[in-house]
């Protein structure tokens, strides 16, 4: 936490957790999908489920799914923008066990038919935590530039990533790895001190067994 977390963030009201956090989760989902969203199922849990209308959490998530930032005044009319841009959505509530009170599950389908499912919590002050990605337990906030790699668990995967980031002279601040089972689906989340060059990101995308490589810049 630092001074711009206290004098800031600059955001659309009324609630840093219910509005700014919700927009951020929508935007992260859009980035993880990697293409414009055609359809989204939005399910609110807990306090989100009780107050989404009055806090504009629905408009915030929809705006985020359209790629809007947390301080974009267009968040207010995001439902209208969704209609204009041909993004269909539905909103419902869900009761989850052992989930943070401000949790939302978003299932998004893109132009190409690709889908992504994100379960994330808005943990306060506009900060968020992605807890499940496509059903797999993860944990990343997107507060720094973050590289998310979905891949097949295999020896040497981490070495390939660190080699390409070193070639790009990008320092890794933190790194976490998650997997379903040995040899199964896996996710790497790397917080970076700077943005790697596009050519190195492309090289990562070509690594066999790497299904999806996303650079989150929330």
């Amino acid at each position, binding site marked *: *936490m*630092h*001074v*711009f*977390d*206290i*004098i*800031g*963030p*600059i*955001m*659309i*009201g*009324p*609630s*840093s*957790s219910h*509005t*700014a956090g919700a927009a951020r989760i929508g935007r992260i989902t859009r980035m993880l999908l990697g293409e414009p969203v055609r359809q989204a199922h939005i399910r609110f849990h807990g*306090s989100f489920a*009780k*107050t989404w*209308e*009055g*806090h*504009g959490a629905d*408009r915030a998530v929809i705006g985020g799914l359209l790629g809007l930032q947390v*301080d974009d*005044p267009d*968040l*207010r009319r995001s439902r209208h923008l969704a209609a204009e841009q041909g993004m269909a959505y539905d909103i419902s509530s869900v009761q989850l066990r052992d989930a943070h009170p401000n949790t939302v599950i978003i299932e998004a389908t893109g132009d190409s038919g690709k889908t992504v499912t994100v379960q994330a919590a808005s943990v*306060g*002050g*506009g900060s968020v935590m992605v807890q499940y990605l496509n059903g797999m337990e993860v944990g990343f906030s997107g507060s720094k530039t973050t590289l998310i790699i979905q891949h097949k668990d295999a020896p040497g995967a981490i070495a390939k990533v660190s080699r390409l980031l070193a070639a790009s002279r990008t320092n890794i601040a933190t790194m976490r790895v998650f997997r379903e089972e040995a040899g199964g689906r896996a996710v790497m989340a790397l917080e970076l*001190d700077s943005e790697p060059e596009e050519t190195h990101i492309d090289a990562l995308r070509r690594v066999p067994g790497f299904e999806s490589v996303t650079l989150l810049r929330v």
Partner: protein
Amino acid sequence: MERSVTKLLTRAASLGGIAAAMREWQLRHDDTVRTVEDMDGRMRQALAVMRESVSQGLDPKTRSVSGLTGGNAAKYMAAALTGRTAGGSLMGRICARSLAVAECNAAMGRIVAAPTAGACGILPAALLTMQEEYGYTDGQLVDALYIAGAFGLIIANRASIAGAQGGCQAECGSAAGMTAAAITFLKGGSPRQQADACAFALMNLMGLVCDPVHGLVEVPCVFRNVGAVSVALSAADMALSGIDCPIPCDEVIDAMRQVGDALPSTLRETGEGGCAACPSMCKK
């Protein structure tokens, strides 16, 4: 320094003020800013957004999404400018602007959380009205924002700035403490007096509960912004008068944390107690 007012005052003594100490700390801890100019630019941007939210909130047509609040800041400002407020023009304008920013927030307008969205009216109302009244430069207001930020950071680290954790004392209370310190700085108070002003404001709002009707940041939140800014102003005035706060600021912050921990969950942003439980507010 980020956890202790005592250490902040020591740094301030060697660097020539709390704003300088905060800038120096921030430059070392935030890897997204490279220079003091970058940082000051971001603060100026925050100041510009604060100005916009004041004018948006003063529009009599402002209404929240739920329809519970809006349009009252315009009434307050009109009363303040025509001599109908008991507290006089300066106090009236400060309070009206505090309400304006809070109503702008409730209406999904753009605001600067300071330290939170629910308490976003207090700091901008005081700084911008002080500028109008006494002619401070934007540069002085930017220094005041760093000072407010320094106290807010310590409160966040030692206690809490989240209503769900510490009640409204953590939101409007913290904002009042930060604002009291900033006002004291603008009026020429020493770093020690700025810390005393912060302590007075926190002391006077200690125990304030978070009880939003229907769980929304509206009733009583927007009105509490008015209450908190008036507490900030009197806290600053006590310090500026030479009244020493008998309890050191760090200890008041620690007490605030203990009080927050002792609050039942019905009074910590669940919408189940306090104003939220009043019979006329429970009807849909």
